[in-house]
């Protein structure tokens, strides 16, 4: 980077924790935003070189191309189990999983719930876009009642498919969890809060306090059949009422962290 004049202050730059590769994410997809937030936090905590990431199966399966750090790629839903194996043999490393709602809230519920219950010293970034992005827009456990997807063509009918799964509320009931929160990447204030939540979650891990998870309400304009702007609005109007924002569990020690 070229030197900046002494009279100027550097206020924004490319995070070291990201590679310079162009992502494959669709225009308006918030996966890229959330990657950046994680990267900024890891930079800020100065732990890039101590971090091992676990990628899911889903649109972010190639997250390891974009994060500039050691990474492994898990079977669908099993990231928390892999992260458990990694962290237990590397207690001094920072280990995180990055998972979508199909990955975490459907096929991987067993792994996430038990990793949380054991209080694994890992952090999970949970991207909730109310749909299966990668496989072409099928219904996810988080799909809203009435929401049309390729596998709920008449809209999700709770009598057939049940109601959306609320992961942050489930996490709130688990003693091993020290921090569970639901945030959004749908506008600037939301993004700023998400960044802070991610930082708190990684700090909780750094301090060895317990399992931490940040759910981020996200968009999938492609499979929602909306343009990027309309997708943001749709998510704010429909997802937030179903998935209320805010912390669902904060231990006293986590609350005391200076973020």
């Amino acid at each position, binding site marked *: 980077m070229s030197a900046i004049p002494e009279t100027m202050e550097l206020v924004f730059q490319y995070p070291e924790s990201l590679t310079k590769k162009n992502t494959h994410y669709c225009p308006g997809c918030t996966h890229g935003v959330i990657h950046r937030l994680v990267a900024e936090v890891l930079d800020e905590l100065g732990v890039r*070189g101590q971090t091992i990431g676990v990628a899911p199966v889903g649109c972010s399966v190639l997250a390891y191309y974009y994060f500039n750090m050691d*990474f*492994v790629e898990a079977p669908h839903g*099993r990231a928390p189990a892999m*992260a458990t194996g990694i962290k*237990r*043999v590397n207690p001094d*490393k920072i280990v995180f999983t990055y998972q979508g709602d199909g990955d975490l809230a459907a096929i991987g519920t067993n792994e996430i719930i038990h990793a949380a219950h054991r209080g694994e010293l890992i952090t999970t970034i949970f991207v909730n876009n109310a749909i299966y992005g990668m496989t072409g827009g099928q219904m996810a456990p988080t799909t809203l009642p009435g929401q049309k997807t390729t596998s709920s063509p008449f809209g999700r009918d709770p009598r057939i498919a049940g109601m959306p799964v609320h992961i942050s509320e489930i996490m709130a009931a688990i003693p091993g969890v020290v921090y569970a929160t639901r945030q959004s990447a749908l506008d600037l204030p939301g993004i700023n809060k998400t960044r802070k939540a991610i930082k708190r979650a990684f700090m909780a891990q750094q301090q060895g306090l317990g399992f931490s998870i940040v759910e981020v309400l996200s968009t999938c304009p492609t499979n929602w059949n909306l343009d990027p702007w309309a997708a943001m609005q749709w998510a704010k109007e429909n997802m937030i009422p179903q998935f209320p924002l805010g912390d669902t569990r904060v231990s006293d020690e986590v609350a005391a962290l200076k973020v």
Partner: protein
Amino acid sequence: MAKELLKGNEAFAEAAIRYGLEAYFGYPITPQSEALEHLARRMLEENRVFIQAESELGAINMVYGAACCGVRTMTSTSGPGFSLMEEGLSYIAGSDVPAVVVNMQRGGPGLGNIQPSQSDYFLMVKSAGHGDFHPIVLAPASVQEIIDMMGLAFDLAEKYRTLVLIAGDGSLGQMMESAELPPMQPFPYPRPEWAVSGAVGREPHIITSLDLSPEGLERMNLNLQAKLAEIQKHEIRWKEYETEDAEVLLVAYGTTGRICLSVMREARKQGLKVGLFRPQTLWPFPSARLNELAGQVRVMLAAEMNAGQMVEDVRLAVAGKVPVHFYGRLGGIVPLADEILAEVKKL
């Protein structure tokens, strides 16, 4: 070290510790639970990692995670658990990381029962998960051999960055006999360069089984096949007994191989020229040596605790040179030496 009276399951668990096992992840299932119980106590005593996982899916993926860090790691299970693990086994194979899995086979299909069986031969040797790969499959026939094979399994897994299975069965896990454990090896084993360990002063290490381009994935598969070809060249193991003048050749592995040793001895006493061929690696299979022996014996008899699985590999190996007969018992029944001897006499 002196010989001790040891139970199969506890023996391989303790051997694993002595050979440097750093992290064990498992889920209880008969007939291997004594191994998990032994490790639950001993791993903690040794300040190493033990987790009773939420399922075999959890266990194998924890093994996968630890394997990506290059440590000596393993799990143990039996048929129903092995079925669940196949997802993880395929990923382990697809990403070239070393791991060891012990399968103490029991009667199937379904829940079956908890008696000894060899009915997972196809599962382990031919289809340990989706995609094109073979694990190395070791087949011990005694408590001593399972102890020795534990060390071999870790060495081979690391040498080839591959999956190694130990194909035991319920009787091997439950039997007690005198055997010698190895001394405690230096611990921990140094971690290999390729592992994930935090990218300080180097490019990031990525461990994945994914390659979206067909050309890339074909290359990855060809590399995997080249590795398997190396294994086939160097790691075939078997034991032969009285094959020099044999007219009838028994072919059997594991517990059945051991029973066939008694069959052979009794047959010899009765003046029958019977020999025994006992594969110690089920993959790679000792086909070339069997083919040579086919030029010398009159007939072969494969004995297994299943409906006829390994016998297919014996037939492939001898390529029609001699008739290959089969004798098997199912459902967890261990064949008696007399039954097999009666079959020999019919040939």
